[in-house]
């Protein structure tokens, strides 16, 4: 006779790939992994009628047995869409293959400073070599204001665009990070001829604002903000990285739409301060902007009057941050696709394709320092164990296995609880590697390779932040370092979980509304207006 506990585990596992959600008597059943499917009932009575139950209540779906019965009926009705499946907790060959495929289609490389032509060409050769023709290579010039230093910046962008054009990898963007203290008149013509060039503003100064009055004062007095508006009026589609701190989290719901208005719809990236590499005091030179720059937010965040100086005080409260994001989400005038992480979640709710959390999470992100040293992502820069090699020495010297290890560190398959029980883990694609590495920097622990006897990063549990003391719930063992990691984990996951939940319901409502087009109508002109007359239920569309 089988042990009852085994039965329960088996029962839970049968429909590991399906999630049931009820709210206000409505019911949605969706798969939590590809292929994504969802079925929706406006109320539980309709669901009961559909599946042949006498009655269904939200309470009746709470026990595993009743969920099992419910889903079994559904699987019988809908066939393969809701076929029971176990979802494993290790990188499957399929996942590894998809990761490889992703890397062949996309790579991102960041130059953390003004690099020589040799470094630029060496890095692009190394990065683009693995990308098939027609794929995309995103390049960003970070850690250095290439717009202010336009002589060198122009030359470097010209080289990059020329290389990507000739290597037929023309779909990627070249992003120039700037403080927008000034810009040259020929910038418009240059960018018009190279439309994939994006200008990004690090709005670090906005990270320390506590009220809308302060924001107004800043808008009036800031040269950077004036330039931001001027560039937007010239047609540039700007990218703004807005740090979210304990100070500005409360005004975020008003500040984000105001920034969209000022820039005529920039793409806005909201990042909690602890997850910003350039706001991190431990980041290497190049990643961390030079202190003392007048428009430089990192400096102001750390030294500005009245600002919290410690990283803990700069970090927003998770609940405040989540509430701010939800308020932005509920603002109908804010296009979801323009604000990250809302756009990040929206893309994953509405997609059937398997997704990854970020390029770094599949080992498709490089950061190159001016001396040619390459690292597996921006957060890895300066960490010796994540050093891929030096691009001046060619592709042969690159430690490619580190990119795989980085992917393994972020792999969704490696996550135990709470990821394992999270309905969104497959859509999420796993926690971004940046969170793990940020936690590592905060904890000063060797997150990636601790616990590995041979010192090699990766492995099934090695990348798990919780197991290595960086992230997760068990903070006692990890002490202070674990606490820091745990808060980072929450900063990353909590808003996304909540947004997934909200957007699922939003898309369900939208699809239900779209289905109900109503009868076709004709119009009849009156002297002072128009009358609509129904012409029956037929719908030629």
């Amino acid at each position, binding site marked *: 006779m089988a042990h009852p506990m085994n039965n329960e585990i088996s029962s839970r596992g049968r429909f590991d790939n399906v999630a049931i959600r009820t709210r206000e008597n409505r019911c949605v059943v969706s798969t939590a992994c590809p292929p994504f499917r969802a079925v929706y009932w406006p109320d539980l009575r309709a669901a009961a009628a559909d599946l042949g139950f006498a009655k269904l209540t939200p309470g009746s779906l709470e026990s595993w047995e009743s969920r099992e019965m419910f889903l079994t009926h559904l699987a019988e009705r809908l066939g393969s869409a809701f076929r029971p499946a176990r979802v494993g907790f290790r990188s499957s060959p399929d996942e590894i293959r998809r990761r490889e495929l992703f890397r062949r289609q996309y790579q991102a490389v960041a130059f953390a400073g003004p690099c020589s032509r040799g470094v630029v060409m060496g890095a692009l050769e190394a990065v683009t070599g693995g990308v098939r023709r027609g794929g995309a290579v995103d390049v960003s010039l970070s850690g250095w204001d290439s717009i202010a230093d336009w002589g060198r910046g122009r030359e470097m962008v010209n080289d990059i665009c020329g290389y990507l054009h000739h290597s037929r990898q023309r779909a990627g963007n070249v992003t120039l990070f700037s403080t927008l203290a000034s810009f040259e008149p020929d910038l*418009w013509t240059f*960018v*018009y001829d190279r*439309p994939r060039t*994006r200008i990004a503003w690090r709005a670090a100064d906005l990270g320390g604002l506590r009220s*809308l009055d302060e*924001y*107004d004062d800043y*808008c*009036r007095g800031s040269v950077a903000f004036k330039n931001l508006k001027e560039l937007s*009026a*010239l*047609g*540039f*589609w700007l990218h703004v990285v807005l740090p979210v701190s304990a100070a500005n989290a409360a005004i975020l719901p*008003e500040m984000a*739409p*105001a*920034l*969209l*208005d*000022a*820039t*005529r*719809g920039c793409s806005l990236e909201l990042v909690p301060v602890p997850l910003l590499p350039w706001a991190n005091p431990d980041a290497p030179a190049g990643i961390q902007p030079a202190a003392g720059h007048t428009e430089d937010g990192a400096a102001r965040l750390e030294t500005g009057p009245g600002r919290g100086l410690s990283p803990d005080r700069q970090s927003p409260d998770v609940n405040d941050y989540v509430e701010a994001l939800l308020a932005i989400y509920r603002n*109908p*005038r*804010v*296009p979801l696709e323009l604000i990250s992480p809302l756009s990040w979640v929206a893309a994953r709710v509405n997609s059937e394709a398997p997704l990854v959390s970020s390029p770094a999470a599949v080992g498709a992100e490089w950061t190159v320092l001016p001396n040619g040293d390459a690292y597996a992502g921006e957060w890895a820069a300066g960490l010796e164990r994540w050093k891929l090699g030096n691009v001046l020495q060619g592709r042969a010297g690159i430690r490619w296995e580190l990119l795989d290890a980085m992917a393994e560190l972020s792999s969704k398959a490696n996550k135990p609880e709470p990821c394992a029980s999270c309905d969104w883990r497959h859509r999420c694609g796993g926690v971004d590697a940046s969170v793990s590495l940020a936690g590592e920097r905060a904890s000063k622990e060797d997150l990636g390779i601790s616990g590995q006897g041979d010192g090699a990063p990766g492995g099934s549990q090695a990348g798990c932040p919780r197991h290595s003391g960086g992230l997760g719930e068990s903070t006692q063992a990890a002490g202070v370092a674990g606490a820091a990691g745990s808060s980072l984990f929450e900063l990353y996951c909590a808003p996304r979980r909540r947004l997934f939940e909200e957007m699922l319901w939003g898309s369900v409502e939208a699809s239900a509304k779209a289905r109900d*087009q109503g009868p*076709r*109508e*004709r*119009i*009849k*002109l009156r*002297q002072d*207006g*128009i009358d*609509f007359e129904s*012409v029956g239920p037929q*719908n*030629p*569309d």
Partner: protein
Amino acid sequence: MNCNPVVPSREESTSEHNPPVPGVASAAGPGEAVQQGPGPGAPCAGCSKLAWSRISDSLPSVRNVHSIDLDVTEACNLACIYCFKWQKKPVHMDEATAKNAIDWLLEASGSFRGELKVNLMGGEPLLRFDLIRKIVPYGKMRARQRGKSLHFGCTTNCTHLTDEMMDFWRRFGMGFHCSVDGIPEVQNVNRPFLGGGPSSAAVERNVPKILSYRPRVTARATISPQSVRSLFESARYIAGLGFTSMTFKAAVNCNWRPEDFDALRCQYEKLGEYYIKSQLSGKPLDIDDFRKGIRAIHSVEAASRFPCGAGRGVALVDPRGDLWPCHRFGPHQCGGQFRFGKLGEPFNDRLRAVFLRYNVLEDAVTDCRHCPAVLACRSWCYAECVDSTRTFYDPGREYCQAIKTLYAEVLRVHDFLRSHHPDVLGRILKAAG
């Protein structure tokens, strides 16, 4: 906050939003006041203060708009006898409204990946070159950075063109659509300057500039009962100007008499012969009406259940920021009842659904189902229906008669080519497809 201002109500409008263009005559007479006040006819009110995020309020629920007509001004330097903008005033679009309109198109096009189009219209749009010079670079840059393609075209009367304009057009690869009615006698009577002076000399002077830049620009001629007897001669004149592409549209509501339709049939016959000859020659002319008609005979797809793209993929933004189904609709056309909304205000999706779900074979009052010309009837115009018959589904006698006359000739040309020159017919069909 200063970056998210409240949009003032229409009543707050001031003349500052519509500054007159220096050196340009307007249709309003001396001392004639610009129409103001609420309602669709009001001049732009607070458009320049419209916050970008308010644009999302006016987006349609079905985002498939791929083309907008942008009335950059209602002023014109000509006084065409059949102009449908008969109440035109010196109302000009401001820069903010134009930019908002472009942003609206980029958003309202949704996931449409083809080329988006902005057609600069008016009035005479080239009178607002100062505005065009600002909004085209903006729109092109914005679209390119968003990964979309945006083409600007301009419908002009060819009387107000400078070398500076031509350089600008070349720089941004913009298009032209020329309104030319034909021989000087027709042009000068149908399309005189505001003061009554002849316009044909200005057209003859400027057309070569346009053709040197875009040799395949289409000339559009409007046929009125007064000019119908010169149709064939006008076609030859237009070809003599250098145009290789032309189209002829009959103006309706112009008191066409039976003898005028007889003359139209006679002229279409001559035009048909001319078309055949040109097709057999080394330099074929593209007469749009024949090409599309021939294609319609061959392609069921061409016989769309929609007369045109108005209200579906096309919209008009007028100088006040109001949204309409196409350039033929406006505050002074069709009773001003077809307003979709205004930039920054809710969009009338219910009205648009009428356009989206229109079915010519089911809705038309006239018996289109049994009409032989229904396949070629691609120039059906909602606005003309409303203007002619005060219904949305009946184009009226004049329109039907004109289209049937054209179709009879298209059929004749088609049959001749099929019998004697199938290769030429194949070439036309290939070009039309």
